[in-house]
Each structure stands twice: as structure tokens, then as C-alpha cells.
């Protein structure tokens, strides 16, 4: 029994590691690319649909393809998961920045802010609730995508699930699936906490009180 708990915890730790590292990399990439794209609306118009299509390529196919390139290593897992984790953040960054009300952009320009100041002082803070919404999505998804790590024998909670599926052992499947679900809940909750802290009071109850 004790042995079982240890193996679950170990797998969960690996799983969490994959998730956190990939989400962190994905978020940074998504935010950076999102900001870049929002400055180049012409490019964004073509790139966003393209990325959405890419996003629908099943993770299993992608990891398989990547496996050919980078082999059976944790790097393969991290790269694949990071790219998947990037999409929701990227998309929400573009949408969030895009939907900042024109009046604030105009006021920021009129006050004499340059591009960077406008972005940092006004546009990003106003887009933050949307961006963090993307981060939440990507965190929760990544927890489940990380199951695929087991496919190229890189551990994680997916191990139990794959073994369970191949040996038709439901207990084993649950042994992987339940902790993964709990992990998704916990990490999602953490992002919600972040949401509360990162979004200023003025933005919490509705938008401006016109």
C-alpha cells in the first residue's frame, strides 16, 4: 500500500513538473508572440487561424512527430507540451489586447505615453483578466496532455493509465486519472488565486461605471 502511494506521488511529481515547466514556457511564448501579433494586426489576421488549425492537431500525433526529431527524452515532452500550452495564452493575449476599449488607448496616447508605456501601463493590465483566463485553460489542458509523456516512456501519471488500458485494469487507470484530475483542480485553483491578485480592484466589478 505504502509502495503504491509512493509510486503515485512520484508519478504525480513528474507530471506536475512537466506541467509547470511547459505552462511557464508556453505562457512566456504565448504572451510574447501575442503582444507581437497584436502590434501587427495584418499578420495576426492570417496567423491566428493558422495557429488554431495547428492547435487541433492531436497531441499524440504531434508528440509522435517530435519523437522522430528529439527522441525519447523529457525534452520531447516539454517541447510538445509548451507549444500546446502556448496556444490559449497566445490567443487570449491577442484577443485581450484587441478588446481594450478605444477610449483608454486614446487617453493613453493623449497623455503622451509611447508604445511601450501604453502596453505596460494600460493595455496589458486591462487585458490581464483575459490573458490569465487563457493561462488557466492552458494549465488545465496541459495537465491532461502530460499524460502523453508516458507514450514515449517519460513517466508521469500517464504511466498508470497506459498500463491500465493495455492490461484492461480499471483500478490502474483510475490510479492515474484521479490524481490527474485532482492536480488539474489544484493548479486551476492556483491560477484563480493569481487572477485575484493580478487583477486590480478597479477591474473586478464590471468595467468602468459609466
Amino acid at each position, binding site marked *: 500500500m505504502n509502495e503504491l502511494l509512493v509510486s503515485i506521488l512520484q508519478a504525480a511529481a513528474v507530471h506536475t513538473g512537466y506541467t509547470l515547466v511547459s505552462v511557464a514556457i508556453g505562457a512566456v511564448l504565448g504572451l510574447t508572440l501575442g503582444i507581437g501579433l497584436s502590434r501587427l494586426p495584418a499578420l495576426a489576421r492570417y496567423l491566428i487561424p493558422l495557429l488554431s488549425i495547428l492547435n487541433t492537431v492531436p497531441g499524440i500525433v504531434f508528440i509522435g512527430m517530435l519523437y522522430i526529431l528529439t527522441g525519447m527524452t523529457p525534452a520531447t515532452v516539454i517541447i510538445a507540451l509548451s507549444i500546446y500550452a502556448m496556444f490559449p495564452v497566445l490567443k487570449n493575449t491577442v484577443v485581450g489586447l484587441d478588446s481594450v*476599449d478605444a*477610449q*483608454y488607448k*486614446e*487617453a*493613453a*496616447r*493623449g*497623455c*503622451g*505615453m*509611447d508604445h511601450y*508605456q501604453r502596453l505596460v*501601463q*494600460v493595455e496589458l*493590465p*486591462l487585458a490581464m483578466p483575459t490573458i490569465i483566463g487563457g493561462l488557466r485553460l492552458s494549465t488545465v489542458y496541459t495537465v491532461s496532455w502530460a499524460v502523453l509523456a508516458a507514450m514515449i516512456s517519460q513517466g508521469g501519471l500517464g504511466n498508470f493509465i497506459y498500463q491500465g488500458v493495455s492490461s484492461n485494469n480499471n483500478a490502474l487507470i483510475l490510479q492515474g486519472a484521479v490524481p490527474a484530475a485532482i492536480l488539474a483542480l489544484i493548479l486551476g485553483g492556483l491560477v484563480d488565486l493569481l487572477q485575484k491578485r493580478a487583477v*486590480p*480592484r*478597479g*477591474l473586478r*466589478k*464590471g*468595467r*468602468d*461605471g*459609466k
Partner: protein
Amino acid sequence: MLRFDRVSLTYGNQKILNDISFEIQEGQFAVFIGPSGCGKTTTLKMINRLIQPDSGHIYLNGQDIASIDRYELRRHTGYVIQQIGLFPNMTVAQNICVVPKLLKWPKDQCDQTVRALLDMVEMPYDQYAHKYPSEMSGGQQQRIGILRALAASPPVVLMDEPFSALDPMTRRSLQLEVKNLQQKLNKTIVFVTHDMEEALDLADIIVFMDRGQIVQTAPPEEMLESPATDQIREFLGKHQSAPDPAGLTVDQFMRTGIITVKQDRGINECVSRMQHHNVDTLLVVDGARRYQGTVSIADIRLTGHVVKTIGPLVRCVTPTVHTGDNAKECFEQLISSGFPYLVVLNGDETVAGIVTKTSMASAMAEQLWG
């Protein structure tokens, strides 16, 4: 102070501004008005280089603004927009300090500025400085919007329909506040509005635009007196005649249906007429109904027994005026003469009516309440 020199702008093949030139003096409150889409906002936004002209030059204190760094220019030009645009992620204090911060003022100077400005609009620092825009009314928000524009004490403040989204009461009090601030701080204000009343109340000079051109530039009184086009007259609308007593004539307020009597009528007929209409004087006319004077019951009692007709008793002392005479002057005459009424005559000297103090009161009421 601020001068536009032959400024033009074209979008596609639509001329937005067509060769605009004007000059605004330091400390002037200039109000731009005109129909929707005439280019007011465009003109305003050129002053802080939010929009670049295709041709022409804009000078600020003699310097072509094209040669000023546009961020620097904007930091030294106040800007208030209709949508208010307070940053919802910042408190009142942070919003007010946006420009001072961009100018890298030290923190305690920023704090002092916030206190001084909030003080000026009577919004206590402790109560408001740390509120977020969403926690305030529209009027309070726009007050802060104005303070944000004033924070770095810019010599010129641009305001694009700053009050049009506010309810009439709030608008009124903010108008007064802005006018006060402008005079106290000696700002040059360029103000855009749709509302002629606002323009007339606030402006030192009104610039009327239509289809990308300036139609008339004049102080409010002059525009009221001699609007350059019918369009401006229409915009002036009710303001034109009503607040201008010079346009009112006495016949608009006189009482008509006055009892008259011919001068060859007998005393008895005259007395019975007075009794019948319950008056103590009658206006006397000749055969052609031309005004001759008045006859009073007192005179008839005194000397009625020695004359047959009222002719000899007619007095011609009551002041007369003519229809078309200025109402205000007639009222002044009525008061200074001490008579209970004035007689208003038509051009052919027949009686048109009389003006009493009651007519004066009703005229004043009409002035005040429309």
C-alpha cells in the same frame, strides 16, 4: 499662442479639413462648434499630433509643432475626451499622476499635485484619492479626467465634448468649474461641443465649422448679433432672439382692445362708458380714430357741468410710443414717467394698445422662463 496656417487633410478622396487657418490667443477659451462630421475633432487632435495634417503648419508659441517630439508635446498639452477614459486599473491618484510620472516628477511632488487638484474641485483627498474610476459617478469621473489633463500644468488644454455624456445638472456645474479653473489658472482652452448654449456660456471666441472649413470666428455676442450664415443662425436657434432683449418690441406685450371715445361725444355717454367698462380714464380719438389724448373721471367731476362734449377736457400728457419700438426702452419710459400706462400708437396715429406695469411683468416672465 496657437496658430493654424492653411491646414488641410484628406482621407482617400474626401477632404476632411480644407485650408484651415485661425489663431487663438493665450488665455482664451476657444470653442469649436458645427454639425456632426465637420472636422472639429480632427482639428483638435492635430494640436497634440494625434492626427497629422497633409499640408499646412500648426504653430504653438511660434514653434511649428511638427518639430516638437510628439510624446513631449502631448505631455505638455492637456487632453480631455468625451468618453472620459480614466484608466480603470488605476486609482484616482494614479490617474491624475499619469502625466507627471511620464515627466518623471519626484513622488512627493506628484502627491502634492494630487492633493492640490482634488482640493480645487472640492473632492476630499482621503475620500477619493484611492478610489477606482468604477467606484465613482460619471460627473466625478470627468472631474478627475479634467484634473488628469491639468496635472502637469500644461498651457493648453484640449477638450472634445467633455460634458456631452453627463446629465444636465452635472454638466452645468462642470461647465462652471471649468470656466473658473480656466480663469484662475489662465489656461488656453480649445473646446469642442455640439451645444450652442455651452459655447455661448464658455467661449471667449467661437469658431463655427462646416464641412472642413471655418465659417465664422467671433466672440459669442458678435455671433449672436450677426451670424454669418443661415446655418449659424439655425444653430443659435432660440438663443438668438430670447436672451437678446434688443430684439423685443413693445407691441408684443401691449394690451389691446382698449376702450376709446370720440372727442365730440357728450359727457354723459363718456361717463356711462367708464362705468360700463369699470375704468377711470378713456382714450380719446378723433373722427379718423387718431389718438388725441385721455379723459379722466376726475376731470369730468370737476368741470363736467360747464362743457357739453369731452373735447375741452382732453389732456395730452400721457406718454405715447409706437408699435415696433423697443420694448425695454418703453418699459424704462413707463417707469421713469410715473404714469400708470403708456399709449401705443400705430403708424397712422390710431390707438394700438397700452402698456402697463402688468405687461412689463409678463414680458419679464417670458424672458426668464421662455
